């Protein structure tokens, strides 16, 4: 009975259906089209929303772009420098880094018990990476300057000379740590890194990099702003800085004549201020850094202390005792104690030298000793002694005695500035360093970071 009706109904409805189906399809089509357009019209690739990319700098950089790379480089040179100095100064028994939260300063760096330096630990990986990062920035700066059509040839030389000088200095700091394990010199292509070169080859590569920068500065115009180069921030000044570093490298290579030549072209001044030189500047501005070596006196927990031998070995009246001030209470950790804070930076924005006249005077003395011009050397050593409230040198006038004297003056003059360990290693005297705990070791080099293998 109902089936008949159904049959009719279907018949009637099928006509309507035809009409409705058309409308429905029409509507569906509109919805689908709108949705598809909405969804797929724009192909999304947002780019980097947070910062510029390397590619942007390599594409015809403006002087402003290049100046930003210069400042980034100068700023990046400071990264992990606190750690570098703690590394070198701890092993060189200049001081201790006590940290309630980081035992490895006292275990690994001092070789406590069976501890050894590890290739995967922060003390080598972080500082090594920070130096090569600055090198990378120099390479980007060089490439950007070469690609730029918006600067003069002289300006280009200025940028490139600066980049090469900084690069050489950064490589030197890493080579100081890894010593016979060497460094990579050719690192411009991150996907195709050059091989490791030995210590001597590394020094020679650094020296030639400095020499090519010297050539750059010859015809350079320097217009970029620098923070820590007061008085040495033009082409002539940067050339002097370049030669000061070259003098240090030449000394490491025992090329004593070159040391003297380089010093002559540097800001070396026997009568000058010991603190004349170039510095890492620090500040509290946005994106800036504060001096990592500044810890207030009498701090607890996180402390940087002078090795007890610093005060024990210092000559009477030597004003450099002020670099390690007496604490209100002795600090002790892991079987080590000291009653003196390292106090070479008195505020968190105090600048940190990377090369200064006092070192150059001592390099001059060293070169003079090595070239057997002993009176000249004594003159220089007495400049240092006099400057620190000591009577003139009265010891034996022999090469060995004067070298000992030079190393001793350097120990106090450049305390916690990253020299003693390296200098004693050069003279094969690491065995003269004190051992505080039974089983401690004195390392002569850091292993290469594990990621380099």
């Amino acid at each position: 009975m109902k089936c008949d009706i159904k049959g009719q109904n279907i018949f009637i409805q099928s006509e309507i259906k035809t009409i409705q189906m058309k409308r429905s399809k029409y509507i569906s089509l509109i919805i689908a089209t709108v949705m598809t357009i909405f969804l797929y019209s724009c192909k999304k690739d947002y780019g980097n929303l947070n910062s510029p990319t390397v590619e942007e700098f390599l594409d015809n950089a403006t002087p402003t772009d290049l100046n930003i790379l210069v400042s980034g480089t100068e700023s990046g040179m400071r990264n992990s420098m606190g750690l570098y100095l703690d590394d070198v100064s701890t092993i060189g028994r200049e001081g201790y880094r006590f940290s309630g939260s980081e035992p490895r300063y006292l275990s690994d760096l001092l070789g406590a018990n069976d501890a050894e330096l590890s290739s995967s630990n922060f003390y080598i990986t972080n500082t090594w990476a920070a130096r090569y990062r600055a090198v990378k920035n120099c390479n980007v700066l060089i490439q950007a300057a070469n690609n730029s059509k918006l600067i003069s040839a002289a300006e280009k030389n200025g940028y490139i000379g600066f980049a090469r000088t900084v690069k050489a200095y950064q490589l030197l700091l890493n080579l100081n740590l890894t010593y016979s394990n060497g460094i990579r010199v050719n690192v411009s292509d991150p996907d195709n890194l050059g091989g490791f070169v030995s210590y001597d080859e590394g020094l020679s590569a650094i020296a030639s990099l400095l020499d090519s920068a010297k050539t750059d500065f010859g015809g350079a115009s320097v217009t970029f702003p620098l923070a820590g180069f007061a008085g040495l921030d033009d082409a002539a000044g940067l050339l002097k800085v370049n030669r000061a570093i070259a003098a240090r490298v030449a000394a490491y290579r025992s090329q004593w004549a070159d040391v003297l030549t380089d010093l002559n072209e540097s800001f070396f001044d026997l009568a000058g201020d010991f603190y004349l030189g170039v510095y890492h500047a620090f500040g509290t501005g946005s994106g800036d850094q504060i001096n990592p070596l500044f810890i207030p006196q009498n701090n607890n927990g996180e402390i940087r202390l002078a090795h007890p031998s610093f005060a024990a070995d210092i000559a009477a009246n030597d004003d450099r005792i002020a670099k390690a001030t007496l604490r209100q209470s002795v600090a002790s950790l892991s079987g080590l104690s000291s009653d003196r804070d390292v106090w070479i930076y008195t505020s968190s924005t105090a600048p940190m030298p990377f090369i200064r006249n006092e070192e150059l005077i001592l390099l001059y003395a060293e070169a003079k000793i090595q070239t057997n011009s002993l009176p000249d050397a004594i003159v220089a050593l007495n400049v240092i002694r006099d400057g620190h409230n000591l009577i003139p040198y009265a010891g034996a006038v022999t090469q060995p005695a004067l070298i000992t004297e030079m190393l001793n003056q350097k120990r106090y003059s450049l305390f916690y500035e990253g020299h003693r360990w390296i200098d004693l290693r050069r003279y094969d005297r690491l065995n003269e360093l004190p051992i505080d705990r039974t089983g401690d070791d004195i390392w002569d080099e850091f292993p290469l970071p594990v990621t380099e293998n």
Partner: protein
Amino acid sequence: MKQIGFYQPNFLFPKQTIAMRKLIVTLTLFISALLPCIIHAQDRTISGRITDANARPVPGVNIIVAQTNKGAVTDADGRFTIAAPANARLLISSTGFKSQVINLDAAQTDVQVKLEEDFAKLDEVVVTGLATSVKRRNLANAVATVSAKQLNGVAPGQTFDAAINGKIPGAYINANTGAPGGGTSVKLRGVTSVYGNTQPLYVVDGVFMDNTATSGGLNAITAATPGGSPTGNQDNPSSRISDIRAEDIENIEILKGASAAAIYGSKASAGVIVITTKRGKQGKTNINISQDLGVISARKLLGVRQFNADRAASLSSNPARSEALKQQFLDAEAAHEIYDYEKEVYGNKAFARNTVASVSGGGEKTNFFFSASQKDEGGIVKNTGYRNTSLRLNVDHRISDNIKLGLSTNYINSSADRGLSGNDNSGTSIGIALSSTPSFAQLHPDASGNYPANPFSASNPLQTIALMTNNESVNRFVTGLNLDATLQRNNRSITKFIARGGFDFYNLQTTALFPSNLQFQAVNKGTSIAGATKNLSTNYILSLVNTFTPSDNLSFTTSAGLTQETGNYENLLNIATQIIPGQSNVDQAGALNVTQFKAKYQNDGFFVQEEATIKDAITLTGGVRFDRSSNNGDATKYYAYPKAGISLNLTRLGLMEGGLFDNLKVRAAYGQATNVPAYGSKFTALVVSNIAGNPGSIVNIQQGDPSIKPEKQTELEAGLDFSLLKGRLGIEFTYYNKKIFDFLMLAALPASSGFTNKWVNAGDLRNRGIEIGVNARPVLSKMISWNTSVNFWLNRSLVTRYTIAPVPQGSFGYVLGSFQVEEGKSATQIVGLNGAGVGVLGDAEPRFQMNTYNEVTFMNKLSLRFLLHWKKGGDNVNLTYLQNDFGQTSADFDNVTNKLNVPDGVYRIMQVGSTAAIFVEDASYLKLREIGLYYTIDKPISFIRAVRLGVSLNNYFTHTKYKSYDPEVSNFGTGFSTGVDVDPYPVSKRATFNISIDF
């Protein structure tokens, strides 16, 4: 009569006259045109009553007239009425009961139905597609579900992420910290990525939730991650998923791998957790008020070293200092000023309260569920705690017979004061400071409230706790919309347009304040860090779903659609130092450092899926989704994610007739999914590095890879499910093989390249595992019923291809034990110095895990429920103990049990540098995570339907040999390297009294 559908006899002339409804009219006309005449046949009113096996009425049962949109729900007495034609079939279903089909006789007007309990949950409906679902009996995957009762009905943790812990078979869930506000890592079926996203996608009522953990900039204080960045992966932020309220949740389904989750495409490789919140039902308005009152205390303290004069003297190698320390101890002892600082800091009892009020109900057209809740909990460390206020309104409305609209809205305000814990390099973290502070140190404030400097550490932990702030505050709106429109219907085919989508917006304010009078603020003279984060995530799915039923034995569900997901995240972090005393605003400062980070992505996709069911016994599923993402190296390229599944129900097929099994099913499923690269991984950026006011840029330590691809996952899963003894015993056995190709790795580069790391597609890895689930009703009587489920699961991973050099990562290097991905090894192996070089010391992967959930009900009134969780194996890197040894304060420092006959603390320190084996520690545990006893009183007075009283204990009993606070810990937060233990915020336990009243 509670009709949920309503019937308009005159379909051809609908009553809608409003112009706006033209489209609806058209659709309705169109649909009605297709309706067969049977709908127009004369209806009769059928009434009936539905009861359970014990003849008790069952409320809330759905009754639907087959092939129509008409339905009804039973009332409190189990009664219903519905209009249905003669010879109609009634489909009767209710959660927890087996579905039934009632064939009405020609003249029948009265129906009595007795429901059978669905012990094996075979009739549970599981969402398998973006817009489709199947019954569990036909499921090709092992989809775990967590019911509201399991989630929230025993003794839930503080936050949602804590509440799921131990409840998901196949998952490795690990709480990162005991700090208030949560923070949990969830890994489904092994690690699916190393440095990519390892965490599942959470979908709440169709809205993809953002689960980014945003650091509040604590690294500026702790310096835990070197390099001077204000944020690091050791800042222990909470997981954003912890914002949602467990009390609002009806049900959770866990799609553990690609074979189940492929249809979610590029977001699914770590699995998908599908959360459904409670919704209103037609009928009497139900009001519930629930109140919890609880006490929180530390689960375990490590104890402190018992000092005496000699031990105090031994703290220094310097004779004078040694003598002074000795005197200091003697003075303190004489003045009775020897303190247990660990207990003082972590031993506090905190109060917790939680109030939830909900109202639900509805009429013919509109149903709603509303809840308002607030919890406020203290922490075991003073000045820490958690507060969460949430409002939820879920509304379902029928615009017409054929168009349904569902709206889910949720507003959340949460605030967590998390303290300062975990690793640091500045001696500021509470645990680090305690580790070097002996009991005779004097840290208490003087009469005017000034704290003395702690001579043994960089900070005075009592002062830090009293003066600092580390707060995360969230305002979050989540809105989901669900449109379900029937486009066509006849007795063989139904076509629906289903649109689902929504947005998740939150604003996160982080405040970290360290005033200048704190001991460790001598350099910075006060630090105030204000972080503002906003995130908007949106997603939608537009799909057409056709169900075609050519005969009773055959059914096809075809779906196809478009999807889109977007994310827009921005974080602004202001770090002010040199603060003007007493001020906290970042402008009241001498120095200000700002960082800003933005991330944006858009994923587009489309999909088709076909499901065929034959005789309700064989189910075949096939589908494919195509996705592209702006995060991929090639943002325009579409990647395809196919999936397929088959399940054969042998008993339903009649192959196992009359045998031992009530139900026996074999199943297999395969699918693919991916994980898109992290935002920004394709760029080599320069980051800001200024000096003396000169703006500077320096190359980032991360090298970009313009060719970065998503990591791809394939998963094959097979299983056997059966039930015995009338369903009182159900067993599920699953095996899976999950392969991850081109997994994303933040590969360590030779640092001489200028870069420290780079995102690469580094290799392939594999996870294989088994999951066994047993559901049983061992006791079932009117007096007592006992419902139990036992799950066993294990996973093994293997790196099958690795194209870069293996290096230690995710921890502190070989000296202290570290993760290292290496070909041919477990992905989560822990390596380190072993006395003879570098070797494997352990593995974070548990050997296996088991859990059991039990509910014993007496007289239907008293209910005892508990959840027991056993993790066997899985190692942690425990450095908390090392810190205490190093600070010479560990409780067993002076025991002598070693071969050198020196104090154990000294001996352990001597191992540093030669072996890391002592730090890699078995983190097995057996935890009674939750236990609760509840008593229900029915109708105590006329207007109260029921009162439930309960007492519960959370995390009260743990059996473990692990030596730190808790085997669940992660200094590096949520990610690959869980289980690194560095002075965490200790895990707490809680005892709660609950009263819940139904009106």
